[in-house]
């Protein structure tokens, strides 16, 4: 009937992105998320399906392929889950009134009562509208297997556009309230070069005069780029070595850092050095604020706190071959991420409000469907 679902992950667009992910030609969670949505949009616009399950399976198989290509880039999976969530939502609104769907779900049982709380007033009269079926959505139509896809595709494209729009406006929405978080004459510490933090600090600079202290973030020294970018935006900038973070902490009003992925328990993966900064901040009771878009919310619990290093970078920046004598004698590792425990974080500033770590799991419940946690 519809195209063989197994062939879909092998389409050119998917293959291309998968191999670019594998070769780390696409880096950074924001860019990865954008690329993933674009690929999904292409796949869906070409896909043939005659019911929702086929469609979901198509998206999932593409998602699995991409996640496998680069399992450490959590935003790939997150974006796929988000798209699935939106698609289901659109499907449910589109099929509302096609009778079959809702009857069983409308009756309250104790289990549903526990799960969803008190029955809402507006849920009850819905029964009346069941009769007048205005849905033109017909699944598994044997005469015209593409009819379902034809009617649903426009709304699907809209749903994907929503995800895309959210990703494109993410920096603006996070920095919207920057001036409420940074006050005049404050001293802010940051680490690494996070585009989110960069946008946030620059937005605040339009209203406030403050100083940023940037740790140089060895061995990638991405702090240097950050310092350059901020100072050229007219912010008073101080670059310090990572080793002086603790000593400087007593003068710092706030630590603002970016995240690579936020996990369901409210902890996060962030560039190495973040744990150091967060722990030092805790010792001085300095607030730690994390700026991150909601596409970084990952429905996983970190089970392996000990192995904070999720990913390893090129060791040559730690010990290059020019140190020939030593290279043979030692093993060199260069962990790229730290796991920062939820207790060390005071708030997440996201594109949809500010949240404490303890409510991250709820954001995740709202953003994704439970059945997609495993793609």
């Amino acid at each position, binding site marked *: 009937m519809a195209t063989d679902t197994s062939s879909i992950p092998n389409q050119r667009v998917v293959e291309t992105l998968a191999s670019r992910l594998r070769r780390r030609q696409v880096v950074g969670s924001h860019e990865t998320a954008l690329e993933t949505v674009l690929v999904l949009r292409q796949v869906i616009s070409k896909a043939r399906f005659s019911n929702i399950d086929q469609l979901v399976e198509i998206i999932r198989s593409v998602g699995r392929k991409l996640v496998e290509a680069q399992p450490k880039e959590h935003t790939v999976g997150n974006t796929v889950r988000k798209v699935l969530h939106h698609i289901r939502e659109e499907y449910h609104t589109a099929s509302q009134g096609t009778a079959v769907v809702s009857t069983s779900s409308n009756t*309250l*049982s*104790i*289990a549903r*009562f*526990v*799960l*969803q*709380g*008190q*029955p809402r007033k507006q*849920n*009850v009269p819905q029964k009346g509208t069941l009769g007048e079926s205005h849905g033109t959505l017909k699944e598994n139509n044997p005469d015209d297997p593409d009819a379902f896809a034809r009617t649903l595709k426009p709304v699907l494209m809209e749903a994907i556009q929503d995800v895309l729009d959210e990703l494109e406006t993410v920096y603006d929405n996070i920095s919207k309230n920057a001036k409420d978080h940074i006050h005049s004459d404050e001293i802010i510490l940051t680490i690494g070069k996070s585009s989110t933090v960069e946008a946030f600090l620059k937005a605040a600079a339009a209203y406030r005069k403050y100083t940023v202290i940037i740790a140089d973030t060895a061995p990638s020294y991405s702090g240097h780029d950050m310092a350059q970018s901020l100072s050229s935006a007219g912010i008073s900038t101080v670059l310090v070595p990572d080793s002086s973070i603790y000593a400087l902490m007593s003068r710092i009003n706030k630590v603002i850092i970016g995240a690579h992925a936020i996990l*369901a*328990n*409210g902890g996060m993966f962030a560039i190495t050095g973040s744990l150091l900064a967060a722990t030092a901040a805790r010792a001085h009771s300095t607030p730690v604020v994390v700026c991150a878009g909601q596409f970084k919310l990952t429905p996983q*619990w970190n*089970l*392996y706190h000990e192995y904070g290093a999720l990913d390893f970078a090129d060791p040559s920046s730690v010990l290059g071959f020019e140190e020939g004598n030593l290279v043979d004698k030692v093993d060199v590792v260069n962990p790229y991420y730290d796991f920062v425990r939820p207790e060390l974080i005071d708030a997440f500033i996201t594109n949809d409000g500010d949240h404490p770590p*303890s*409510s991250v*799991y*709820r954001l995740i*419940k709202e953003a994704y469907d*439970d059945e997609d946690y495993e793609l």
Partner: protein
Amino acid sequence: MEANTLTSACSAVSFDIYETFASFMKDEEVLLHSAIIPLYCVSSYRDQISAPLAAILALTKLIETSGAGTMFELVKALNDGAEALKASNSNPISLNAGCELFIAFVTLLPHDSASFSDLKLELVRQGQKYAAEALTYRDKIANLALGFIKDDSVILTHSYSRVVMKTLLRAHERKRISVYVTEARPRGLGLRTYEELTAAGIPCTVVLDSAVSYVMDKVDFVLVGSEAVVESGGLINAVGSNQIAIIAQAANIPFYALAESYKFHRLFPLSQDDLPTHKPNILSFPLSSAGNVATPPSTGAIKPAHERDSNDKVRQMTAEQIACNPGVDYTRPDLITLVFSDVGSLTPEGVSQYLVGMFAG
């Protein structure tokens, strides 16, 4: 429907709710005869039902036998029944959670039944359906917690809990685990855990309640069951859980609680004294003149070591002394890492969201 004690309790002129409750608790076989229990759980059904579910079933029986003709009368009868149950039970916390859940459901069920007796039948059906469904919750929780148990984990658990047992046994199927279990004086329920785990082939060692801080360094995480999880996200469980949680936090070790969602209880204790189980006699100082409680010389007194003679046998608390002790304690939410329940793995704060959903507004 049922053949034994239950029918007599029901047909009796005065319906005794406590007897019904007890019959559900003790003689779970009654349910075997009713069609609502799926066959797969027949063999394992014995001993499965917990107080909140037995309370819900007892209340459905009450609806069946009650002659209430209006919603108001019915809710009053249910409230009275719940009160009676509470009064007749020394530890009413978890059964109270069940009663509250069911009564809130009864008052809020939107219905379009033709007559009141239809509605009553519907309520009974819902209650029984839930009780049957809820039996699968422990499996759900075990599967959820499984993801958090790494291979080669050393787990500390406290006393005996059916949901913890299920989780440990499930984990044992796939992973190597070893378990320390506290003795849990005075009832010694930890020994039951020990027996069952050893029988299943899980390496297990009983530790003294007073040795928890000694073993804590060797432990990967603490796993306890629950009597109830309250609105603050705190935990009510067999006495000793609180001190284990405090020690776990001091050692930076995760403390996980397992709780079926029918154990979510709308209660906000600020201290141990606020628990409904707290009676004036608990932790009271006996009057020295009374003499009936403080009977030092024979068994109770603590002598300095050098006075001890070799034929001195091990001292034990008297029943009176034990009676001055609490059976459950309250653990603050900030000591709990996660609560695993059938609705998902929640942070302690997450529990209040569900309680607010059910009972607020």
